[in-house]
């Protein structure tokens, strides 16, 4: 039997990956461009004069309305507005907020840290829990653990985020009946914010309820996706081979089923980031968490035209960027695609 002694070829994988990333980045730029254009038209071309919509509930004289219109540049011809908008946006100038009388970009800069803290923590927890539980449930479909997990997911899927937040607020912050409230009801830290480690604990205490709400609503999806991914993997022969090799059941799940099931799950997790963002906005609104979501919510309530436009733009662009990142990361992780 002849043994081939060829040397391993120079893998063109690196070049392939760069080319793929470049293509994806191009796609992302196109999407972002479309978002900018869509935002422009959304905020100006919809039926119903946006300034009048803004004036709802507020007593504004026609002169004040005209003044506002001029301030927003809405009295100029559309093409001129469009050029102005695009150039300003590309310079990261998102206009001034009506309510705060400050540049929108500054407001965003102040708030984004809090949002990243809350959403980031919640995502990490939701993904970990969802994947762990989903893997176990999918490994033994029909078992009590599986039925229990699927039932919980179904219920959490049906529960509106804001209602769960309200309930938690009522039970844990305000207290129900004889049980006193344990957690604060709003904000990111107490008025008399302590320093150092005590300060961190204070923030953590404030973050507990909003984080819990966000995790509860989001993790169910990850559980279900991971579960069906694992069920798909178990059908394959290599799992039977692993059993035949004498591995323990848990080891087979951990070393063989889960890594394979993880890949499509991670992709789906990132594809549904829009859902998490919606949940974050709701949670920040209810718990008055001073983040980007709450800023957006305020902009809608006031209503503050430029702030709404600016935050909407930023949120949407972030989602697109995260999606693109996820795509590229998936390509790096999956060996089958890496060398393609």
């Amino acid at each position, binding site marked *: 039997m002849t043994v081939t002694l060829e040397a391993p070829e120079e893998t063109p994988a690196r070049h392939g990956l760069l080319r793929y990333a470049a293509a994806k980045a191009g796609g992302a730029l196109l*999407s972002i461009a*479309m*978002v900018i254009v869509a935002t422009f038209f*959304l*905020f100006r071309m*919809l*039926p*119903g004069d*946006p300034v009048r*919509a803004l004036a*709802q509930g507020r007593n504004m004289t026609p002169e004040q309305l005209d003044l506002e219109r001029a301030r927003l540049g809405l009295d100029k011809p559309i093409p001129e507005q469009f050029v102005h908008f695009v150039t300003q946006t590309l310079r990261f100038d998102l206009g001034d907020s009506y309510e705060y009388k400050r540049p929108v970009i500054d407001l965003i800069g102040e708030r984004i840290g809090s949002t990243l803290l809350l959403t980031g923590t919640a995502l990490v927890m939701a993904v970990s829990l969802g994947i762990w539980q989903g893997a176990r449930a999918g490994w033994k*479909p*029909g078992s009590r653990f*599986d*039925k229990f997990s*699927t039932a919980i997911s*179904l*219920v959490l*899927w*049906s*529960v*509106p*985020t*804001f*209602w769960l937040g*309200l*309930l938690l*607020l*009522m039970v844990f*912050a*305000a*207290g*129900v*009946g004889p049980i006193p409230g344990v957690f604060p*009801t709003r904000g990111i830290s107490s008025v008399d914010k302590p320093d150092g480690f005590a300060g961190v604990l204070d923030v953590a205490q404030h973050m507990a309820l909003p984080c819990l709400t966000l995790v509860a609503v989001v993790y169910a999806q990850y559980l279900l996706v991971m579960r*069906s991914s694992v*069920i798909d993997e178990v059908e394959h022969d290599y799992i039977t081979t692993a059993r035949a090799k004498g591995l323990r059941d848990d080891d087979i799940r951990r070393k063989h089923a889960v890594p394979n099931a993880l890949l499509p799950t991670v992709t789906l997790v990132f*594809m549904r*980031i*829009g*859902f998490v*963002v*919606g*949940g974050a*906005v*709701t949670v920040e*609104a*209810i718990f008055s968490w001073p983040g980007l979501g709450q800023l*957006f*919510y305020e902009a*809608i*309530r006031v*209503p503050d035209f430029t702030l*709404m436009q600016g935050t*909407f733009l930023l*949120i*949407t662009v972030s*989602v*697109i960027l995260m*999606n693109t990142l996820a795509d590229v990361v998936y390509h790096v992780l999956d060996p089958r695609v890496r060398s393609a």
Partner: protein
Amino acid sequence: MSTLTWVRRRRAISRFWADFRTHRAGMAGLVILAVAVVLALIAPLFIDSGVTNVVSGTGAKMAPPSLDDPLGTDESGRSVLLMIWWGSRTSLLIGFLAALLSMVIGTVLGIAAGHFRRWTGAIILGITDWFLVLPSLVTALVLAALLGGSTATIIVAIGVTSWPSTARLIRAQTLAVEARPYIERSLALGAGHWHITTRHVLPNVAPLLLASTTLEVASAIVTESTLAFLGVSANKTSWGTMLRGSYDWGAATAGAWWYILLPGLCIVVVVMAFTLCGRALETVLNPRLRTRAA
């Protein structure tokens, strides 16, 4: 359409019904739905439409459940029970119509994306994917805020932000259907786009569409209540608006648990019913899913 086709269709429907009956969860969901819809429809026989009027409240303000008001009262003394009952009409109606709108857009674009090859199909698919990435709640909020939150605009806001997932599903089905040999035969006989999509593709995607719509209604109800809660809906009667009231008037800190728990519970029950029903429909209509464990 020939009688033979209808006979076949009728037989398929009775077979489907026999299958569906075996899914306990799906049947439970269906029963709950039926009860909810009936209650919503007969509400005007028991309740005067002025029940939501702030001055109509007869009970004590923020009172716990009692014999007079079995589910307690809100901040204006209105009975929570009557408000929930009356509000079911709004929530269900908006849910149905928004899902319908989403389905129509999704089906049209989905079939178009699957049917038309090359540039047209690719562009439609690209637009669908782009919409899919947009955060739906955030976009719906903006739409509702800018259009003024009337019932119609809420329906539009939800419909316009939830169609992409349906479109992808329908597109996949369209591609599968059009791969079948009889389509090729149809084309050879000179069938046009309209004929193929309406006479061949549409009847084949219809079952999946039914399951999808049911799930979509569930999602629409949640979105509508969220939009109402966040204050962009001008609607005064939906369950979301009630919960908004509970938040604004500090029901949580006042310990008025009935005001918070009960409207929300209704949302959860109705949404779960639609979801169970929709999932059962999916399992029955999609044989591939049936072979899955559990």
